[in-house]
């Protein structure tokens, strides 16, 4: 650092690091904590639903979220147009 540095705006790269890490850590933390069973749960639910309705595997969505301190398991199944077949 010399004379020029006194007048040059230094890039605050530490802020970039901080923002990137905030996102990474939030993602890592939401992905852990006993939620490893989601893929299996999805598959088994699909099998049960299949007994009654012929649904496309991609039409079953499962999500775990948080609301007011509770964990919410959200399951959405898009039923095919002509039901009951």
């Amino acid at each position, binding site marked *: 650092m010399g*004379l020029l540095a006194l007048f040059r705006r*230094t890039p605050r790269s530490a802020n970039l690091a*901080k923002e990137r890490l905030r996102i*990474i*850590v939030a993602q*890592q933390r939401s992905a852990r904590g*006993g939620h490893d069973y989601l893929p299996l749960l999805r598959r088994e639910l699909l099998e049960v639903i299949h007994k009654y309705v012929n649904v496309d595997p991609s039409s079953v969505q499962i999500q775990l979220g948080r609301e007011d301190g509770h964990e919410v398991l959200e399951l959405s199944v898009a039923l095919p147009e002509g039901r009951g077949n």
Partner: protein
Amino acid sequence: MTEIIVVTSGKGGVGKTTTSASIACGLARHGKRVAVIDFDIGLRNLDLIMGCERRVVYDFVNVIQGDCTLKQALIRDKRLETLYVLAASQTRDKEALTSEGVRRVLDELAAENFEYIICDSPAGIEKGAHLAMYFADRAVIVVNPEVSSVRDSDRILGLLASKTQRAERGNHGVKEHLLLTRYSPRRVASGEMMSVTDVKDILGLDVVGVVPESTDVLSASNAGVPIIFNPESDAARAYEDTVARLLGQSVPLRFIDEPKRGLFARIFGH
């Protein structure tokens, strides 16, 4: 009462072994009976940092496999009489370290009235790292203020919260402490490096110490004398403070602010 402390990080090269050695020496200087164990099977280093590499006859795996007794394998430190080192094996067979074997050695150390057992974890999240943390009561997570180190340490936090005996038994989990190493107050002040507060907020951990970047650390490992013994070094003072905090004392953080520099130094200095 024996307390097991794992020194871990996920990422390699952040200062785990340096930290393990200095914390072990620091606790022993407080008169505690301490054993420090190298869990890096195949790549032992702690013996070098402790300066006892020529006195390693038996190692951790030898004890587990029953080739010798624990007493034969423990190397007594030449400087501190309550400090013992258990070296890692140089075997390439990582399977030599078993959960049952580790448990037996830790139980025996507890029966021998060791007050602290420091487990120096290998880098990564493989078996050695897993076993180093599995039986721990507390964890010192060594982090450099740098993106990959912080991300890896968060992975380690995930493992501490799920893959440890305390987590499995549901009794309060492992107590986690953040130790920042290679900290440069000058670079923090210029906005090039994340600050203590930044890293603390991102990880949500208590700070047990901040060790400034120091050329003394390399000299210490060159000489095989843990940095904490260097009376001239700021890094040594930072480790002493860390040890005091681990012992429950309240000590303010030092060496986290840039030394005040005059205009002359700012124009011509570095």
